[in-house]
């Protein structure tokens, strides 16, 4: 049976829909972890791969996109800010 989630008065429906779509979409992130760079799936707790440089991590994330294993990839800088979105 489908689960129903109550939307409280004042909730921004557009935002909830966008958030829900983002959380379910199949994409990967390139993010900094200490001195390394990782590729991880959206909302995943573990890294798919760990790299020494951001360029290596971006290359790997691009491979996920080009082979259809991810719809797109999001690259973040060391501060967590989005710098690039890679699509097929």
């Amino acid at each position, binding site marked *: 049976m489908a689960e129903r989630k109550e939307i409280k008065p004042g909730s921004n429906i*557009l935002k909830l829909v966008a*958030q829900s779509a983002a*959380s379910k979409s199949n994409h990967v*992130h390139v993010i900094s*972890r*200490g001195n390394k760079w990782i590729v991880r799936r959206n*909302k995943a707790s573990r890294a798919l791969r760990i790299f020494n440089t951001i360029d290596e991590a971006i290359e790997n994330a691009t491979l996920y996109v080009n082979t259809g294993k991810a719809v797109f990839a999001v690259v*973040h800088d060391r*501060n*967590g800010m989005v710098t690039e979105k890679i699509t097929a």
Partner: protein
Amino acid sequence: MSFERSVFINCPFDDNYRHLLQPLLFSILYLGFEPKIASTISSGNIRVQEIKKLIKDSQYSIHDISRCKPLFAGDMPRFNMPFELGLDIGCQTYGSRKLNDKKCLILETEKYHYQKVISDISGQDIKEHDDNPQKLISQVREWFIGLLNMRLPGVEMIFAQYNDFTFDIIQDLAVEGFSQKERDSLSTTEFIMLAKEWILNIDI
């Protein structure tokens, strides 16, 4: 929000500190606490009253004194952060019994830099963040663990969630019609509201 969950934040609110402020606020919310910040638009007298109330209403405080230096060559150093730190320590010392339980974490960029500028605070919890968001999250997390004696999510998890948030929020705000300029210049209050809502809906 209760006294026991409130964290007074004393730090700069300018663009040069944004890369540390936003992960700091996000981490505090993610760990289940409520950051308390003073409005930056109130007039001097009202602002001091507001800060005193926020300090009194918060069991925890985080003071970043790494920016107690002039913004530009020839400017005067900034004294707001040490002033508010002094108010907080005074509140702990001279306040009611409940306020004696207040705890504060002092952050700076480099280890022992404080000894050059404000040596009277030695003996407090002083940690360096190296201007690195992950190091800052780690210091804040470890400080809370030491105080609360409980397990908390790891730094990697918190920072990964923060990265997810920064992407999701760009998309969400674009859907709502926010321009790139508006998205880049979100006020601190707005950032807190968005982060709080995102964390609340994390399992949707």
